[in-house]
């Protein structure tokens, strides 16, 4: 890339910062815009951003180096990010990677000499039902194979726009073909349930809500026994109540659409097919807790949905469902803005998400205080996930009892599940709470499943003996991901993929998570390389327990789960790989000293 005239560059960066009102809290937006304009955020640009926003350069550098889609080094004008998740590996990641490398003439981690194409790996991009998938200049490309990869690279080299390539390869189903989305992504929405995909009259829930007092709305959510759909399962009504009672000059409603858990893609489908329901939920949450401001935190992987979502918001403003005196309720003003992330799994953790929205590194905060007490800008903040807020709108519209009737008594409602891996019909299913794994396997066409990873890598890996367990809070709670692993797979390869994911995505703040996950990953590698002993299996279990019990946030508290649950449920797979000796050196002594033996004419006596 040609060096830019510093004066010109400084002026351009000033102009970019201006579009974000020169606010320090909008640092992520500023650096994202710089990255997108120049393909990098260089040392010089970091200095200029710091000067313009009047903050230290280390804060800017700290942010640039934290997020995956920001970099000091140049990417290509058309950056290709190939997803390396476990399902992608199952469905042909290696073959596609090779085809990209051969046709682009560079290895992953490099940029072509003309600065056109760069190749990088990236963590799950939320397309597990159509893997392998890649983000190319921000647009998702799905169902890739070697031939398609070569065709894409040839098209880019021939000067075709990325959108033209998408159009050539065909647009996806449902709203993916909408003029404001025009994406090849598929929803694969195979089962529409009554709660999230039932017929919805726009504004109906909101009008009902504003006819009640805010406390009455909270009571409805409490009565419906709704628990957060993100995975942790905290009672939603209680969270709303805590937030509404916290002291603050302003409250905020956050909709968490970070959806970084590999194998999860329910938020993507809800936001593509039913965004009004999600915004309706946010707005009535705003009414219930007394907040004028909602923020949808959308992961960068889903930024292709942004123009469409902005349009939905604009429509709602026109219809009086956003803005001043919402739904005709005098004095109830509510606005929603979309905050795009910059690539970090940890930002799905609610306090990390808030830090990121404040323009900081996406590190979780200590608790207490909880976000409902002190969140965004130190004010009471409600963070709910996409599905939770959508469900709230339906609860208010249809009444709590109707919602309860859709599930079990303890776990009310339905659950949106994203199913991927070795099954005939991967995609999104809205199913009643309480359904068994075995039932699900039969619905999706996976009767021969070896294992099911419930809840993504941070969940549990279970085998046949647990298939009669139920998806619900009193048995197997899940954020919604079910990855099916067929009998032909090497299960431990999947486990290793998950551990590499956690090593990559740990924020690095606390020691057990930052270091411990690396230790687990290297121990797994040792076992795969044939140097493992029984002691190594015991170590895996011990170390996993330590990491879980000492880590600061949910990432480290769950990251050892893939190892711990497979050690319990599939122990024989590990035992096949280890040696019975109590201790074994981690390397091959004979090979290591072969050169020396040759040179000295000696032979190694291992007896």
């Amino acid at each position, binding site marked *: 890339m040609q060096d830019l005239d510093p004066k010109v560059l400084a002026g351009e960066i000033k102009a970019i910062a201006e579009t974000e009102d020169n606010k320090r809290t909008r640092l992520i937006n500023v650096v994202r815009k710089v990255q997108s304009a120049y393909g990098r955020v260089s040392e010089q640009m970091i200095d200029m951003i710091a000067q313009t926003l009047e903050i230290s350069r*280390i804060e800017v550098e700290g942010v640039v180096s934290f997020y995956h889609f920001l970099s000091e080094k140049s990417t290509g004008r058309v950056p290709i990010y190939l997803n390396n998740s476990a399902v992608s590996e199952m469905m042909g990641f290696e073959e596609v990677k090779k085809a990209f490398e051969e046709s682009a003439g560079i290895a992953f981690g490099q940029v072509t000499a003309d600065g056109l194409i760069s190749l990088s790996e990236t963590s799950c991009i939320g397309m597990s039902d159509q893997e392998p998938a890649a983000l190319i200049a921000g647009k998702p490309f799905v169902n890739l194979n070697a031939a398609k990869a070569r065709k894409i690279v040839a098209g880019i080299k021939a000067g075709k726009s990325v959108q033209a390539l998408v159009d050539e390869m065909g647009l996806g189903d449902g709203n993916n073909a909408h003029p404001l989305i025009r994406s090849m992504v598929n929803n694969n929405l195979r089962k529409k349930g009554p709660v999230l995909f039932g017929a919805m009259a726009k504004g109906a829930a909101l009008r009902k809500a504003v006819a009640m007092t805010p406390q009455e709305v909270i009571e409805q959510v409490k009565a419906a026994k709704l628990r957060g759909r993100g995975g942790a399962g905290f009672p939603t009504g209680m969270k709303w109540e805590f937030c509404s009672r916290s002291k603050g000059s302003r409250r905020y409603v956050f909709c968490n659409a970070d959806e970084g858990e590999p194998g999860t893609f329910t938020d993507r489908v809800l936001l593509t097919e039913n965004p009004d329901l999600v915004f309706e939920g946010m707005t009535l949450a705003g009414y219930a807790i007394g907040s004028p401001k909602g923020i949808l935190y959308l992961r960068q992987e889903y930024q292709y949905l942004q123009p469409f979502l902005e349009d939905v918001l604009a429509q709602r403003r026109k219809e009086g469902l956003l803005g001043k005196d919402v739904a005709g309720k005098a004095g109830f003003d509510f606005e929603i803005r979309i905050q795009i992330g910059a690539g970090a799994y940890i930002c799905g953790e609610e306090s990390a998400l808030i830090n990121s929205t404040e323009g900081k590194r996406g590190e979780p905060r*200590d608790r*207490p205080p909880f976000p409902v007490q002190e969140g965004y800008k130190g004010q009471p903040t409600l963070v709910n996930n996409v599905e939770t807020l959508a469900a709230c709108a339906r609860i208010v519209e249809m009444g709590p009892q109707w919602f309860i009737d859709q599930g079990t008594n303890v776990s009310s409602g339905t659950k949106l599940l994203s199913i991927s891996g070795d099954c005939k019909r991967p995609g999104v299913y809205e199913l009643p709470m309480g359904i068994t794994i075995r039932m699900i396997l039969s619905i999706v066409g996976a009767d021969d499943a070896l294992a099911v990873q419930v809840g993504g890598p941070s969940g549990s890996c279970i085998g046949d003996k647990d298939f009669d367990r139920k998806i619900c809070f009193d048995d197997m709670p899940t954020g919604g991901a079910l990855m099916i692993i067929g009998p032909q797979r090497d299960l431990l390869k999947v486990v290793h993929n998950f551990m590499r994911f956690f090593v990559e995505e740990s924020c690095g703040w*606390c020691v057990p998570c930052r*270091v411990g996950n690396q230790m687990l990953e290297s121990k797994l590698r040792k076992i795969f390389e044939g140097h493992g002993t029984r002691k190594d299996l015991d170590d895996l279990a011990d170390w996993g327990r330590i990491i879980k019990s000492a880590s*600061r946030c949910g990432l480290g508290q769950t990251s050892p789960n893939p190892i711990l649950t497979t050690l319990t449920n599939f122990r024989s797979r590990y035992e096949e790989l280890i040696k019975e000796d109590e201790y074994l050196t981690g390397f091959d002594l004979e090979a290591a000293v072969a050169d020396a033996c040759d040179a000295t004419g000696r032979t190694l006596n291992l007896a």
Partner: protein
Amino acid sequence: MSDKLGFTIDGKECEADKGRSILEAAADNGVYIPHLCFMKKLRPVGSCRVCTIKANGRNAAACTTPLADGMVIENNTDELNDLRRAIIEMLFAEGNHFCPSCERSGSCELQALAYRLNIMAPRFPYMFPLRKLDATHKSIFIDGNRCIQCGRCVRAASELDGKEILGFIGRGGKVRVKASSTRGLAGVDISPNDECVKACPVGSIIVKETAYRVPIGQRQYDATPIGADVESGKA
């Protein structure tokens, strides 16, 4: 209502002022909870997790968890001490530490905790990372090899010295402390007497030409172990 809260640590009846963290409340009662990233006068951040205790049966970092009335705290138990040992061992394995030749040997909190917790050798494999040394400044250097990313220097610079001159870059295993200048430490306003320099618990931030002024044998933890001051009520 009283301004004092009652609690127990390992069965010992204690009392402390409202608003104290568990770690401070314990110290007020002569009970030492091992810790590394915590430092008096600085905002606690719970990054090292060495001070992990059980409060009412649940694990928590003592430095960031406020004391609550009637709390039952476990501190000096085999389980928690092994957890702490593991964390300290992780830090030894993660960086490149060379106690025998380090000028902070004897005054290093990491080393002192290793002695106190009876660590012989880490259970984890050494990682031998490549780490940078920032020796650009005329009188101070930062050795990444010995840095444990506790952030005490970052917080001290900001909170005590009023200078945003140090910060974290990277994430995961690549997290590092760095000076806020393209020219390294030489490009920032830092001097040997700054609190951020004194805050380093290990041998990562070093003032040049001061090594071995205090002979080995007379250093901070040579005669009494770390935490002895708290336990004798002299802290």
